[in-house]
Every structure is written in structure tokens, then in C-alpha cells.
């Protein structure tokens, strides 16, 4: 930890060799662990693994596998800030490496006490400077201990464990997710700095409550209300406030969606939670403050706005067929399938707001490319829309040093391509990661809303009567777009040919 402390004082100082080594080795190790977790997900797609030698202490099921993959993906996408440094956003390899491993180990146990201890240890590694992290971990650990004490057993997989779940422990765990997910900054209007990994671990703990049995309707309502409020509030902030905290607001938005996913308490809800956290990983990789592959720059990270790049459209959620859109769609479709249209509209609006925030950055600095007199109708915008979004001076002050730009742009492009590829292949991911989780937690879920595979087309959301309420034919849409693009290309070629042959003929 001391090493991160030294470096944090001045990020421009050449890093010690050990840190540089760690910076190149840790992502490779995390990548290997991610592949292992994906293999684990493939192993448990039919039934959970419970090795007999572990005497019921270890259990690898769909939820564990899915959240291990998500936690490692988020750790890869967004290195964690240093634990004890005065500069809160300074990068440090230690928590970025150990926290995901501790969390994945905690997911593997059936012991509620070990899970609580893992969360506390993760909070400790992430730093005690901010009260949200340790309070969140303490609340969650307290909730888990209460469950165990009431039920008289420390293992969640034991049939009687469900007896221990009451409103108090549920409320403690929900509060923990909200705290670590950055909701205090939403309330107090501060620059958002959610604890991405800790909050992911807490979302796992929250979803693990489905293993204990069905939820009370009141708990579901509380989770829906709070989650939707958080998603809408964070979307509003992302759209209507400065660009500097955009990545943080987007992370809070996705955590809000994940809480709504728990509140829906259906197959569609769990799919929403998983997809929202995957979208979070991609958005943090593109817009976040730190990256494994990125040179640290001199501008204070918290005050730095994201780099404008057109590929950001693909992580905005404004483009159907990308992961953030699929996450938003799952929210709208899941709410609709549960019969809660108001929630569907609220989530739809927050998706559009969050997308507008990223879209603004994607095209920022390009406003001078259009023809000068582009003032439109008057009803579209107000009178003073000639003013550019961000002045040149501000833009240049926001941009990092030139050497960092290349790294940041490549991180954005990788995230954008992954977002598109994973978005189109969502049905495959869904079958690997989400379906086993939903099947294995079926006992705690309600039948109000289910997302199923639509073979060779995409995803279907079904309501309790198993009627389709929303459809996302992502594969079919992609093929159709490809055909139309080919047609459009042919037309342009034809027009160009005619122009070359003789102007005025066309």
C-alpha cells in the first residue's frame, strides 16, 4: 500500500519498476481468472457444483459464476483507486488485484460469515478514508449475521436458512448496496465516486437472498422504488450536469438498474442485473478515470472530462444492438413483463437521459464541423443554441497530455467494439451466464416476467401468461442492417459512377 501512496503524490513521477511490472502482469492474471470464471459458468450450466470434500462449504452455482465473471470484468475495466493515498483517484494495483479475488472467493462459499468477512476485507483494501465503503460492508455483514443468527445456521444452502431473512436484514443489505453504489453523492450532489467492485459484491449478496426463499412484496416494492429513483436521478445527472463526473453517474445509473433487477424478482430482473453490470464494465472502460493500458496524466483525474470520440456512441445506450442498450431494454421489458408500466416508462426515460449524456461527449468538439447556419426550427432548441457545447479553451484544458490520448482512445475503441459484439451476441451470453443463474434461483423468484432466448433472432420478454410483451431480435436486426448497408453502398457506387460518366445526367 505504501508504494501506491508514494506514487499518488505526483502521478507524473516515473513509477518504480515493480509497479510497472504489476501494471502489466495484473491485467493478464485477471484475464486468466476471467477465462476460468467463464469455464466455471460453462461447468455449472446444468447444476451447481458442490464438491463433497468441502463438506458443503463451497458451492459454485450460476449466480456465483455470473458475478465472478462480472466482478473480474469490472476489475479489468476500471482499476481501483489507491487505498490510503491522499489523492483519492490515484491508481494503485494492489486493491485492483486483491479485491476481485477476495470477492470471487467470498462468492464461492456457502458460509454467510465468510461472505460478510470478504466484503469487510474488500472495503478495508479499498480504503477507510471514505465512510461509505466500510459502513456499507459493515451493514451487509450485519445483515448476513442477523440472518444466520435467526436461522440458526451459517450456510445459505441449508433449507432452514430462509427462516432467518427478515425486513431488518433485507433493509441493511439494500442500504449497503445503495451506499457503496454511490447514492450519497447523488443525494448530496458531490462528484460521484462509487465503489465499483464493492458495490458489485454487494449486489451479489443482495441477489443471494433469492437462495433463501421468495421475497416479501414490500421488499420488492422498496427495491423497485429505490432502484428506479437512483437510476432516474443518476440518468438526470449524467444528462444535465458537467461531463467530469459522467462515468460515476453512469455507474450509479447501472447500479440503480441492478437494484431494480432485484426488485423485479423475476428471471427478467436477474438478466437485467447481469447485463447492467456488464454495461457498467464497458462504460467504465471507455469513460472511467483509470485504465490498465492508459498513461496517467497530469490533470487532476476527478476534474477531467472524458475524451470525445465517436466510438463512444457504442457505449452510450443510444444504439440498439449494443450492451448498454440491451441492459436498458431488459429493464423496460422486464418491468413491462411484470405488469408495471410506470416503472417501464421511468426506466426508459432514464435510459434516454443517460444515453444523451454520453452522446454529448461522443460528438463534443465537433460542433464546428456542421455548416455555420445550422440553427434549426426554433422549436427544437432555444434561441442561444449557437453557443458551442464546450468552449475550445475548456476542451483543451480537459484533454490529457498527448501521450495519454492514444491510450485513452484505444481503450475507448476496445470498449466500443466489445459493446457491439457482446450486444449482438447477447443470446449466447444469456444462455451461458444468465439462464443457469435464473434456473438455479427459481425457488426465490416470481413468475412475473421472464426473458427467454428467441432462437436465431435475439431475446423475448414474456409475461406471467407467457405472452411476449417485448422483442429484441438483435441477430435478425443485425443481419437486416448488414443487407441494407450493402444496398446503400451499391446505391452510392451507382450514383458515383453516373456522376463520373457525366454530370447532370442523374
Amino acid at each position, binding site marked *: 500500500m505504501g508504494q501506491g501512496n508514494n506514487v499518488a503524490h505526483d502521478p507524473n513521477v516515473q513509477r518504480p519498476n515493480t509497479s510497472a511490472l504489476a501494471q502489466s502482469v495484473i491485467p493478464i492474471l485477471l484475464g486468466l481468472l476471467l477465462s476460468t470464471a467463464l469455464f466455471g459458468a460453462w461447468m455449472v450450466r446444468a447444476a451447481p457444483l458442490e464438491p463433497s470434500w468441502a463438506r458443503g462449504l463451497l458451492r459454485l452455482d450460476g449466480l456465483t459464476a455470473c458475478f465472478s465473471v462480472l466482478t473480474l470484468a469490472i476489475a479489468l475495466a476500471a482499476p481501483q483507486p489507491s487505498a490510503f493515498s491522499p489523492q483519492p483517484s490515484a491508481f494503485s494495483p494492489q486493491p485492483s488485484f486483491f479485491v476481485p479475488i477476495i470477492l470471487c472467493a467470498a462468492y464461492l462459499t456457502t458460509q454467510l460469515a465468510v461472505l460478510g468477512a470478504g466484503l469487510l476485507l474488500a472495503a478495508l483494501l479499498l480504503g477507510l478514508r471514505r465512510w461509505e465503503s466500510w459502513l456499507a460492508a459493515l451493514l451487509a455483514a450485519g445483515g448476513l449475521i442477523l440472518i444466520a443468527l435467526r436461522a440458526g445456521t451459517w450456510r445459505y444452502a441449508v433449507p432452514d436458512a430462509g427462516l432467518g431473512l427478515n425486513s431488518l436484514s433485507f433493509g441493511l443489505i439494500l442500504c449497503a448496496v445503495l451506499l457503496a453504489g454511490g447514492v450519497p453523492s447523488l443525494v448530496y450532489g458531490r462528484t460521484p465516486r462509487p465503489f465499483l467492485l464493492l458495490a458489485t459484491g454487494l449486489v451479489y449478496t443482495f441477489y443471494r437472498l433469492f437462495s433463501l426463499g421468495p421475497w416479501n412484496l414490500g421488499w420488492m416494492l422498496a427495491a423497485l422504488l429505490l432502484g428506479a429513483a437512483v437510476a432516474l436521478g443518476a440518468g438526470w445527472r449524467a444528462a444535465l450536469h458537467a461531463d467530469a463526473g459522467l462515468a460515476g453517474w453512469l455507474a450509479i445509473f447501472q447500479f440503480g438498474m441492478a437494484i431494480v433487477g432485484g426488485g423485479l424478482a423475476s428471471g427478467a430482473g436477474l438478466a437485467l442485473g447481469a447485463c447492467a453490470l456488464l454495461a457498467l464494465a464497458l462504460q467504465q472502460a471507455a469513460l472511467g478515470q483509470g485504465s490498465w493500458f492508459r498513461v496517467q496524466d497530469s490533470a487532476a483525474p476527478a476534474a477531467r472530462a472524458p475524451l470525445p470520440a465517436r466510438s463512444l456512441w457504442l457505449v452510450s445506450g443510444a444504439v*440498439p444492438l449494443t450492451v448498454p442498450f440491451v441492459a436498458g431494454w431488459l429493464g423496460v421489458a422486464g418491468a413491462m413483463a411484470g405488469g408495471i408500466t410506470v416503472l417501464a*416508462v421511468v426506466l426508459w426515460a432514464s435510459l434516454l437521459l443517460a*444515453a*444523451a449524456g454520453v452522446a454529448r461527449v461522443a460528438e463534443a468538439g465537433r460542433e464546428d464541423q456542421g455548416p455555420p447556419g*445550422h440553427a434549426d426550427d426554433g422549436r*427544437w432548441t432555444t434561441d442561444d443554441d449557437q453557443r458551442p457545447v464546450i468552449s475550445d479553451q475548456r476542451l483543451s484544458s480537459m484533454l490529457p497530455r498527448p501521450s495519454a490520448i492514444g491510450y485513452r482512445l484505444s481503450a475507448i475503441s476496445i470498449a466500443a467494439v466489445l459493446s457491439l459484439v457482446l450486444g449482438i451476441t447477447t443470446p449466447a451470453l444469456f444462455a451461458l451466464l444468465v439462464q443457469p443463474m435464473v434456473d438455479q434461483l427459481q425457488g426465490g423468484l416470481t413468475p412475473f416476467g421472464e426473458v427467454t432466448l428467441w432462437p436465431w433472432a435475439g431475446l423475448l420478454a414474456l409475461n406471467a401468461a407467457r405472452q411476449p*410483451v417485448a*422483442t429484441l431480435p438483435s441477430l435478425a436486426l443485425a443481419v437486416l442492417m448488414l443487407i*441494407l448497408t450493402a*444496398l446503400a453502398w451499391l446505391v452510392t457506387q451507382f450514383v458515383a459512377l453516373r456522376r463520373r460518366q457525366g454530370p447532370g445526367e442523374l
Partner: protein
Amino acid sequence: MNELLGALGLAWPRLLIYPGGLAALLSAWVLSRWWSYAGYRQLRSVPALSLIDLLPPLVVLTLLPLPPARSFPYGLDLPTALLLAEWPRLRILARSGGLAPEQLRTLIPPYALLLIGAGAMATALDSLELTALTRWPAALGDQMLLGIGMLFWLAALPALGGTTAELAWALRLRALTLLAIPALVLIGALAALLNAWIPAAILGWVLPPLALIGLALMLAGLARVSEPWLRRA
């Protein structure tokens, strides 16, 4: 896989002639002429859009469940259709600074109206699918809710630039798409009303243009009535 390929193989009339392709381009052009005649103002110029920006609204039009076309098994739903249709608009807004916080505030009321309309339609039909929009519900309450939802959607269009006589093809197609979605409701209602007297085959040919023309006339009237009021507001 074969199913998808088969569906796409049979979809070429949809792609090239109707409801996408030629029919879409022609009706989008006619509609934009009509808006400029009706008094909705024309954009002086818009930032250059590429041909790719034209495709998302065209895909929605291609996949619309409009009657005489052969049904296509892979339909869209309202959230996807709305985002695909709004793609050129979003591009323009992002590039011309229309998504800056101060400008964005002016967009929120009309979009809220649009989403409330969509939510009302979805509540009445218990579904977000576009194919469901053509099913006229049996209960009176649902019918009223669906009609109100459609009116909300239409009322949001003038403020959203869904009725401006744009010069760019992508925006023309967008305006047509935004009008065609509530037209599906009208087609369903008229079909339920008229199918006792007129054979379904004829209705299939007559209703889509009738619904589109009806809604375009209605919105043009709205422009004359409400534009001075909207301008003051």
C-alpha cells in the same frame, strides 16, 4: 438458422418495395412536402449526415407490421423502434450542441409526453410490441387508454421536430416513422370498425395510406391552431 435465412429471403419485397424501400422514400418525400405546405418550417440546413444515418429509421419502416405486406416473424418493440427512428435526430442534436444541459432541458417535456403516450399504449395492450399496436382491444377502458396514448404521442411530435419539413433524407424517414407508429393504432381501430362491411383484403390496401393521411391532416391542423400558442410558451 434456416428459419432466419428463410424469413430474410422472403423479406425482399419489404426491404425494397413496401413498407421499406421505395414506398418509404416516396411517402417520406410526400410527407415532408406536406409539412412544408402545412406551415411547419423547414430546416435551413442540417449538419451533414452520412448514408449510414439513414438506415436505422429505414429498418423500423421495413419491419413495421403494416397490413398488405407479408408478415415478418421478427418484429420490433417500442423502445427499440423509437431509438432507431431517433438516431439521425440524436446525431444532429449531439453535433449541434442540442444535448448541452441547457438545451436538453427544453427537450424533456416533449419526450416525457411521448413516453407517457407510449406507456399508455403499452398499458392498454399489455405489450410493447409494434405488432400489438394493430390489435384493437375489446374493453372500452383499454380502447380509451390506447386512443389517449396515441394522442399524447401525436401531440409530442411538433415539439420534437417530427413534423418539420427536413431536407435530409434521414430526417424525412424519421418523421415518417414517428407518424407511422401511431398510425398502426388507427389502422387497428379502423379495421375493427370496418371489417363487418369491407373485406379484409381491401382494408389491408386502403387503411395504411388512409391512416397516415388522416394523422398528417390532423397534425397539420394542430400546427395552425397551436403553433402561435406553442411559440409563446
